[in-house]
């Protein structure tokens, strides 16, 4: 399969954007919480789950998306949201709890909802999986060829919602791609202590759908496998399950001492950082030279800074606005 050059470059560009965003959020998150870390303090309070290292999972999908495709992601949503093109400014503003945020500050980093692109995520493991099934039902009803994608971790694959959702999508032959981001850990619990078999992709057989494994954290491999799974769904040939072995470079959430992963594991993981590997590959293959890469990095850094600045400059919502948006006003007319 030969991949259009712009896709290869787009993927790199998006990877840089994601990584930079996560790095800067991390800095800002800690900046005003240290030395005595207080989770409630600072510009960004609460839990913060960052996806550095998992960029390939997200960027390999995005070139295959079209307008209206729906994505449900997890508590670790930034990479997927950025790869789908969620407004970076409004996303940053939401993470900063500002009125200009996607949810006017009501949701926060685990509850990012965007209408166009069609994105949502949640703080409950496995909660988004059946939601993607329902989005696919709506697409079929409307006769569109849109596809729904649901991202979830390998830990979520042991939650009942995984089983129920895959059975429903297979039974009804719905256009859904289930994407298992296997970073080998659910907080401190290694996959070997949570999952009775080695590869969740083998669980596709329990639903009679294709199960494909991407054994490394390579954006190009993800691109190819996701391309086929999405195309298949678009053609009306039904759902598939894609499992991607990836790496969570940092702790489960920021502040996690990460003592449960051995130094050896962590060192090896950092050595295979996909940012480095993919950049090298692109230059080796002559697709990007050093100055291209430098230019891309600068452009992405600027875009991220702009978004973060927008967020920090935005006002907080009024306290009383907490009472708004519990219920929608009636719009249906009699």
């Amino acid at each position: 399969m030969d991949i259009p050059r712009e896709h290869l470059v787009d993927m790199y560009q998006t990877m840089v954007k994601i990584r930079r965003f996560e790095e800067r959020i991390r800095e800002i998150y800690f900046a005003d919480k240290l030395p005595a870390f207080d989770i409630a303090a600072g510009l960004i309070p609460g839990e913060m789950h960052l996806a550095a290292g998992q960029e390939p999972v997200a960027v390999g999908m995005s070139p295959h998306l079209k307008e209206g495709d729906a994505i449900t992601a997890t508590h670790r949503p930034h990479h997927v949201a950025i790869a789908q093109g969620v407004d970076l400014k409004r996303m940053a503003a939401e993470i900063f709890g500002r009125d200009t945020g996607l949810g006017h500050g009501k949701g926060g980093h685990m509850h990012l909802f965007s209408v166009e692109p069609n994105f949502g995520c949640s703080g409950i493991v496995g909660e988004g999986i059946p939601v993607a099934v329902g989005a696919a039902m709506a697409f079929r009803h409307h006769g569109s060829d849109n596809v729904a994608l649901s991202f979830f971790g390998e830990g979520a694959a042991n939650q009942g919602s995984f089983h129920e959702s895959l059975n429903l999508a297979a039974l009804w032959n719905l256009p859904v791609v289930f994407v298992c981001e296997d970073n080998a850990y659910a907080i401190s619990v290694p996959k070997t202590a949570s999952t009775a078999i080695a590869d969740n992709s083998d669980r596709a057989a329990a639903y009679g759908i294709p199960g494909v494994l991407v054994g490394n954290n390579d954006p190009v491999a993800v691109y190819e496998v996701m391309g086929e799974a999405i195309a298949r769904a678009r053609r009306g040939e039904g759902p598939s399950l894609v499992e991607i072995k990836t790496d969570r470079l940092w702790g489960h959430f920021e502040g996690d001492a990460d003592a449960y992963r051995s130094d050896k594991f962590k060192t090896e993981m950092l050595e295979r950082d996909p940012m480095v590997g993919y950049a090298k590959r692109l230059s080796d293959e002559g697709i990007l030279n050093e100055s291209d890469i430098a230019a891309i990095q600068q452009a992405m850094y600027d875009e991220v800074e702009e978004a973060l600045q927008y967020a920090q400059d935005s006002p907080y919502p009024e306290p009383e606005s907490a009472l708004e948006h519990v219920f929608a006003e009636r719009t249906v007319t009699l």
Partner: protein
Amino acid sequence: MTAKTERKLTTQKAIAEGIALEMRSDDSVFVMGEDIGTYGGIFGATEGLLDEFGEKRVIDTPISETGFIGAAVGAAINGMRPIVELMFVDFFGVCMDQIYNNMAKIHYFSGGNVKVPVVLTTAVGGGYGDAGQHSQTLWGTFAHMPGMKVVVPSNPYDAKGLMIAAIREDNPVVYMFHKGVLGLGWMTPNPRATGEVPEEPYEVPIGKANVVREGTDLTIATIGLSVHKALDAAEQLEEKGISAEVLDLRSLVPLDREGIVASVEKTHRLMVVDEDYHSFGMSGEVITTAIEGAFDYLDAPPVRVTTPDIPIPYSRPLEQWALPSIERIVEASSNLLVAG
């Protein structure tokens, strides 16, 4: 409100008719759940829909409540107006996350950008020997958590009007039908379960209580099948010279606090009849509402006739003793009248 006709329906048929009318006028409405197609719903709430609308819009599901209720949420976000049935409310525990954490909160999390117009229908109530996992009402549980409206019709007219209002709502609505008010042929006959229902579509506003019987001596605030019991009790009380006002709350979210307060200001005495568990539920909330709004009007402490904090027992003498009964309402009313 449109003029009534002479046509009479059971509550069960009124619900099905309300759904059918909206499905005819709005192609985005569809129904999903266990045994709601071929079977027409275990309690008949979807009777006849499969024949008229076909498998694409009337969808029998596997026993995967988390899966298909979560799917209803996803469909609603993407332009549909799903009606999804949880066969018995007692089963909520296998799927509550999708209901209270997802369906009920997405609109809020999105700052109003995403709408989730789902109607979750579910059967509630006991009294027929179905034991502790098929007899609960649990409306207090649903009403405690924000983001979903909770309606509980007690008669055919309200059932159709509340269903149509629920389907047209842009918010999640939990629509609880009590098995005892449906007028099912295989349940103990209940004359109050059949009544006049206009053939055309109409709405009953969600959030307005209904004074189903005017009275002056005490207010009996209740919901669901207990409305019938309260009305029967009120007739007996009348013979004793006690004039009871019966307030059918009709919805717990929104709760018609003004309606409760207004009635108590008139009668000066309040009884809450609640088939749900006694503690931490509807009875305490309604009484507190009266205290907050009409403290100085109360001639005696409000009382409650409820199901005690026990699992619903199977054996008939136990179950009948535990659930609110006409006798208990009459007795408690008499006591309330001499109190204070």
